[in-house]
């Protein structure tokens, strides 16, 4: 299974619920297109919920970084929600834990944008 992305609005925050695998190929390109699409629509507060993401490879990690820089370069913020232990481990290995703001609670994450 590749990644499935569901988008919802919580106030002015765009929450993207991701489910499945973000890996080189379909998973990473779907993810990239979704982020670009939301930014093109003018959305600048993006919360990426990775709670149901079972697997991310180095290409998927690259897409997270790319999404982060895309949103940031447009004056917005991209934050992460509900990381599994394995995704947390990957962000620690790659030292990206220092780059992303990470939350375990959606309400707190949404409030942090205001």
């Amino acid at each position, binding site marked *: 299974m590749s990644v499935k992305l569901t988008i919802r609005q919580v106030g002015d925050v765009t929450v993207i619920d991701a489910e499945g695998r973000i*890996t080189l190929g379909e998973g990473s390109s779907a993810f990239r297109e979704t982020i670009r699409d939301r930014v093109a629509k003018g959305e600048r507060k993006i919360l990426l919920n990775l709670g149901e993401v079972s697997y991310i490879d*180095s*290409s998927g*990690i690259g897409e997270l970084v790319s999404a982060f*820089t895309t949103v940031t370069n447009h004056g917005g913020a991209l934050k992460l929600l509900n990381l599994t232990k394995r995704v947390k481990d990957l962000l620690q290995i790659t030292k990206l834990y220092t*780059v992303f703001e990470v939350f375990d609670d959606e309400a707190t994450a949404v409030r942090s944008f205001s």
Partner: protein
Amino acid sequence: MNSPHDALIRLDEFFASTLASVDLAEAEVIRIAGEIGFGEDDVFQIGMAVREGMVNAVVHGNRYSEEKKVRLTVTSEPGRLVIRIEDEGEGFDLQSIPDPTTDENLLRQSGRGLLLIRSFVDEVRTEPLRKHGTVLELVKRRDPGD
């Protein structure tokens, strides 16, 4: 076939240079690692290391060429699993790959595959093949408690 060192070849297969091969190779090695008794976390780590090694071979080594194959061999030896991924590309030097965790590289989109491989297996080596191509050899040791 058992060698004098009790090495047992579990897999020796040629894969097309496609992303589908990456998934297949990862699944095969995960199956083997599980069968020979690696724990769940080790199996995950072995699978990801193989995935990243296969991506390197397919994308950067063989550049998706239909004429080029990736050979994957998996050998179980007492206390360790040895995985060799051979491509037919131009070759690469492990030392030439920049550290993706430095400040200047942290926000680069690519270049983390080798870091993950090194994090998830115990030994990583590359060597050029005689005609052309590179072999990436990964070794995962088994904890005595497994």
